[in-house]
């Protein structure tokens, strides 16, 4: 292989490029990204960057920036698989190997169209949001997933008055079970966030969202955090994909011969589950980027067999998620910090609340349950 093209300059693309360089010192590695910035960390965007404890320069991924060529402001628009070329806003780019790591975009239904409506995905989004917030600023966050709750926590700390609207009956309705969710909700209420669960937005009035029961929620900013969709529209006609799952990869990250995908743009198979495992965690993007590159360049291929792991910081509390917990699993409270999740009697996930010291042991326990121990 002479030229590896990586589309997407986020964490997965960056890690893929570094790994490719590790295996082949002579490979031409080109990473194209739609944003103007060099690859950076996204987790602080909803937390430290908003709070001011993390400066924008600190976001930049620190390891070996000269290991590959980064082309900013280049958007991929199509793929010619037969010609082995990516069509981009800067012209065609031929490749011998391709890794798609274009991430995901926030879902923003037309219902929420309003001058005060914002989403958060990029550093530019975060800095623009921070500039809007002054004490007393009224924020309505739509969606009580991780992004909405992290934003609620951060913006409240900046002095905003925050209301979170969630259509389901509790916070984190997909990520965790009701027991863990109740604790998380109690943190938010304790700190003064107004939670409105079982509440959906029926319309946007000039002053803000109107709920289905007629309640008006005056808002200076409306933040929509109801999920993301893989940013693979540019390649959906050329490669196997699904609107919710993105590019469909095997457990090695391969999509088709010579083409791999990693991070939020893709959903991989995982040896511990029969269905593909959608895992939008930072850690998953980091691992899959590495494996996608290694498996394109080297044999034997190595499968993604990590226990999925993610975290969230809210109001000074730490949430850690292992495996695949969730609303469809049976939730069992093991102790005041630990919730275990079972499907068909098999332990498949944990949620740890302020229990970082237990993480390694619970991960090992989960690996044993899932048949992933070495």
């Amino acid at each position: 292989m002479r030229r590896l093209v990586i589309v997407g300059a986020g964490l997965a693309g960056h890690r893929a490029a570094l790994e490719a360089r590790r295996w082949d010192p002579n490979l031409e590695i080109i990473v194209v990204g739609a944003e103007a910035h060099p690859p950076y960390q996204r987790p602080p965007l909803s937390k430290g960057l908003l709070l001011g404890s993390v400066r924008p320069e600190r976001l930049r991924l620190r390891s070996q920036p000269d290991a590959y060529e980064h082309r900013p402001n280049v958007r991929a628009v199509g793929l010619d698989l037969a010609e082995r070329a990516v069509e981009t806003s800067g012209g065609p780019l031929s490749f011998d190997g391709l890794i798609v790591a274009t991430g995901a975009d926030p879902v923003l239904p037309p219902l929420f169209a309003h001058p005060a409506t914002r989403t958060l995905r990029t550093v530019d989004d975060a800095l623009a949001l921070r500039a809007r917030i002054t004490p007393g600023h009224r924020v309505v966050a739509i969606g009580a997933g991780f992004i909405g709750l992290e934003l609620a926590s951060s913006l409240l700390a900046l002095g905003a008055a925050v209301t979170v609207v969630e259509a389901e009956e509790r916070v984190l309705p997909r990520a965790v079970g009701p027991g863990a969710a109740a604790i998380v909700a109690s943190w938010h209420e304790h700190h003064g966030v107004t939670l409105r669960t079982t509440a959906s937005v029926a319309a946007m009035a000039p002053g803000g969202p109107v709920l289905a029961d007629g309640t008006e929620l005056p808002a200076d900013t409306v933040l929509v955090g109801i999920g993301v969709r893989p940013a693979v529209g540019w390649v959906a006609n050329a490669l196997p994909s699904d609107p919710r799952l993105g590019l469909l990869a095997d457990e090695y990250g391969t999509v088709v011969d010579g083409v791999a995908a990693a991070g939020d743009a893709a959903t991989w198979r995982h040896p511990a589950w029969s269905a593909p495992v959608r895992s939008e965690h930072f850690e998953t993007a980091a691992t899959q980027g590495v494996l996608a590159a290694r498996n394109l360049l080297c044999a034997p291929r190595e499968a993604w067999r990590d226990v999925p792991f993610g975290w969230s910081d809210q109001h000074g509390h730490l949430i850690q998620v292992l495996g695949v917990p969730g609303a469809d699993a049976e939730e069992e409270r093991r102790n005041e910090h630990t919730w275990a999740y079972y499907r068909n009697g098999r332990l498949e996930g944990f949620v740890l609340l302020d229990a970082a010291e237990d993480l390694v042991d619970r991960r090992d326990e989960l690996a044993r349950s899932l048949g992933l121990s070495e």
Partner: protein
Amino acid sequence: MRIEVDFDKCQSNAVCQSIAPSIFEVRDDGYLYVLDEEPSNDLRDLVERAARECPTQAITIVD
């Protein structure tokens, strides 16, 4: 014992610094620095605790 930090994963939470301040330091530039990458074995318990409790699991100990 050698300490490896994955700086892409490190979010400068400074949990490691609170556990082992003679080894880990988050400086004014916001980045974590490892002050001693090959500390003596009498610090092993502290370093292992820092690695276990790192919220983003960015620290690895290579024996």
